[in-house]
């Protein structure tokens, strides 16, 4: 559990650093993805159970299932959230393509200079 926690915190730091410090737009978008993945990891690990099994019932585990299965709600919610993130990334990439066509660069600082 503590390992997931530290990994997630590291992911958050990496994502935040990428979004704030990197100049390249694509790297910013990758940073956003990493930051969202930190939340997904965090959310999934909230349902962690010592010795838990995946929430899929089979004839073998049907009796012990309610005791042993992990929390299924975060998994369902993260599934939804992943799709949302994918959609945002697709749209962001298409805007980036257009921006590259207009500015001939992906550097945000240079873009600001080119505006006027």
């Amino acid at each position, binding site marked *: 559990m503590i390992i997931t926690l530290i990994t997630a915190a590291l992911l958050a730091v990496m994502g935040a650093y990428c979004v704030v410090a990197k100049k390249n737009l694509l790297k910013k978008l990758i940073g956003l993805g990493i930051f969202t993945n930190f939340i997904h990891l965090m959310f999934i690990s909230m349902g962690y159970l010592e010795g838990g099994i*995946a929430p*899929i*019932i089979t*004839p073998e585990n049907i009796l012990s299932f309610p005791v042993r299965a992990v929390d299924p709600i975060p998994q369902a919610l993260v*599934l939804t959230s992943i*799709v949302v993130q994918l*959609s945002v990334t*697709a749209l962001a990439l*298409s805007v980036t*393509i257009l921006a590259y066509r207009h500015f001939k660069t992906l550097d945000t600082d240079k873009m600001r200079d080119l505006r006027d």
Partner: protein
Amino acid sequence: MDVIIRTVIKGIAPFIILMGVAIMFHGHLTPGGSFPGGAMVASGFAIIAVAFGADEAEGKISEKAVHMLEGLAILVVAYVILFETFVRSYSGLFGLFGLWSSVEVMALNVAGGIMVLGALTLVVLLLLKE
């Protein structure tokens, strides 16, 4: 793309698509479901588009047809989720753990998979053309 890639993709793409369809249909029994299945089918289409070029696909896939497919799929989803009378009453008809054990969830998984497939294919084709 050169001929090796094309030949290899001709070989694997059908299996990728078939695998995706299988995952969609078994979403209520095994891990996976609408999104992984739909994404897998869409990636099967995507590698075909990468290998053969997006222009080739233009005549074969019309944007209107994709939207119509998506519209039908979302109508199925909305119908089942909001009114839930017809499909749900057939759930559990053939016993637990079988393919037909949950008609409702299966139908929704397939419909959702079609949505995902349509949207992703459209996005990939458009971004490839850019």
